[in-house]
Structure formats: C-alpha cells, structure tokens
C-alpha cells in the first residue's frame, strides 16, 4: 500500500485532503498502468483523471481499506476498457485521420540524434505490440497486458477480476496463443523486410 489505511478511511469519510494524498501517492502508478494498457501517451492523463473521478464517487462502496489496491486496479482496467472501446469506435469512424496522426508521429521520430533513434525504436516496439494485441478482444488485451507487461500475479488478477484462477489461466493461455500466432506470422515477414531495408 502506498498510503496508510486511515488515509483511505478518511477519504471515504469525505476528507478532501486525504483524497488528494491518495491521488499524489498513486498518480505515478496509475499513469504507468494506463499508459501500458492503452498504449497512447496523449490520452493517458485523461484516462487517469477518469480513474480518480470514479475512485472519488465510489469510495463509499469500498468495504475495507485492505482491498483498496486491487479495487483501484479494477477501476483502472474499467476506465481503460471504456477508453479502448470508444477509441475503436472512433477508429472505425475515421481510420484515415488516425493513420495520418501516426504518420506524423513516425515522421517526428524520424530525425537523427541518438535519443531520437532510441525513441524511434521504442515507437517501433509500441507499434508492433499494439498491432499484435489488436488481434485479441479489448478485455483480453488488458488481461494480457496486466499479466505480461505489468507483471501482476494470477492471485492479483483473481482479486481484480473476481474470477477464479483457472478461468483466468484459460483466458490468458488462449489470448497469448493468439498473440503468439500473430507474432509468428509477422516474424515470417520480417527477414524479407530486413533485406528490403538493407538493399
């Protein structure tokens, strides 16, 4: 826990100062998680705010401060999921504008220095993993990201999702297999791409 139980309890009782303390303590973690879940830096702050707004309005439903963290994770997952759904809807409506935005980002990252080369590589990895994860449902994408990228254990996930471990294992296995197949297919293309780059 990044804050004491009594701060959570005070926030539950309506203490704005205690709520601010919670926001300060968890802001960085929520930003990191949201960033990895949605994979789009420009939207992270908005989604993080949404998480804390939901936290504020549902604090009174928290039964005990001990389950605060899994519960905050659940709020984060739900907010990220809502965001991804909205984004998918928007994407369907305007694929072209999204593409041009990506192209602009790629072009920005395309200039010279070492930092820029590193950023280009990071952007390539983000794009690759995002495209691999786009082959599974939004729910599975989040589950897989929490397990594989965030490094949460099955026990943590069990608390967050309220689903038993075996069901989670099956879901994770299927989602991972799908991503693995997509990766294998993609990797089959890569040598050719590499040769093209060299030539």
């Amino acid at each position, binding site marked *: 826990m990044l804050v004491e139980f009594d701060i959570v309890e005070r926030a539950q009782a309506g203490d704005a100062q205690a709520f*601010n303390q919670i*926001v300060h303590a968890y*802001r*960085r973690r929520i*930003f*990191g998680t*949201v*960033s*990895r879940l949605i*994979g789009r*830096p420009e939207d*992270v*702050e908005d989604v*993080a*705010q949404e998480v*804390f*707004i939901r936290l*504020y*309005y549902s604090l009174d439903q928290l039964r005990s401060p001990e389950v605060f963290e899994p519960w905050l994770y659940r709020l984060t997952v739900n907010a990220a999921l809502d965001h991804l759904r909205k984004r998918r809807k928007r994407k369907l409506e305007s694929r072209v504008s999204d593409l041009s935005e990506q192209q602009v980002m790629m072009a920005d990252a395309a200039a010279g220095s070492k930092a820029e080369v590193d950023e280009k*590589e*990071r*952007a390539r*990895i*983000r794009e*690759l*993993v995002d495209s691999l994860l786009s082959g599974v449902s939004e729910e599975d994408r989040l589950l897989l990201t929490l397990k*594989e*990228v*965030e*490094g949460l254990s099955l026990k943590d996930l069990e608390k967050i999702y309220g689903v038993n471990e075996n069901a989670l294992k099956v879901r994770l296995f299927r989602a*991972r297999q799908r*991503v*693995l197949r997509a*990766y*294998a297919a993609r*990797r089959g293309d890569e040598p050719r791409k590499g040769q093209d780059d060299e030539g």
Partner: protein
Amino acid sequence: MKGDDRHLEQELDRLFAAYRDACEAPEAGPDFLPRLWARIEAAPSWPERFWKWANGLALAAAAASVMLVVYQVSTQPRADFYSATYVETLMAQTEAELAPVELAGVAVEPPAEQPQQ
C-alpha cells in the same frame, strides 16, 4: 518444432518486457489536481442524477399515456347515437317493435287491414 515454439515464446516475453520500457508513463501536468477537482465538482451528484432520471421517467410515462389515449380514441368504432337524431333513433326502435314475430317457425303476420267501405 517444440524448440521453435519455446524460442518464439521467449521472444514474445522479451518483446513484452521491451514494451513495458517503451511505454514510459508521461508525467502528470501541474494542473492535474485542480483539473481533477474541477471535473469532480462539475459531475452531477447522485440526487441530481436521480432527479434527472425520475423526471425523464415521468415525462416518458406521460407521453405514453397520451399516445395510448389517442390510439384508443382513434381505433374505437363510433356509436350510432352520435350520428343519429332523436327521431331517427325512436323510429328505429319502433320499427324493431313492430317487426313480425316468429313463433316456432310460424310467422305471425299482423292482421291485414280491411279496405274501408
């Protein structure tokens, strides 16, 4: 084949780890907390939401009632006494009373009028 699969699995794990590093969390802006409070205060409270919901429900119920009344009035057949005059109704009733009565298949005709001498 199995070795290939394992290799692929390991590569995917490395890719996920690289993704974690590539997704650096942006720093929160200095106005994060004030904006958050502004959004919290702008969001309608539970009683407000409830009243909004209740008003919507009442409005929908009233509209449904009006529509139901209009539908019933428009589909109901119009009664005769609305179109017929008092005299016409009285005549129709008298004609029914003066109609020949049939008793067990035997028609009882009213007595023929005698020609006046």
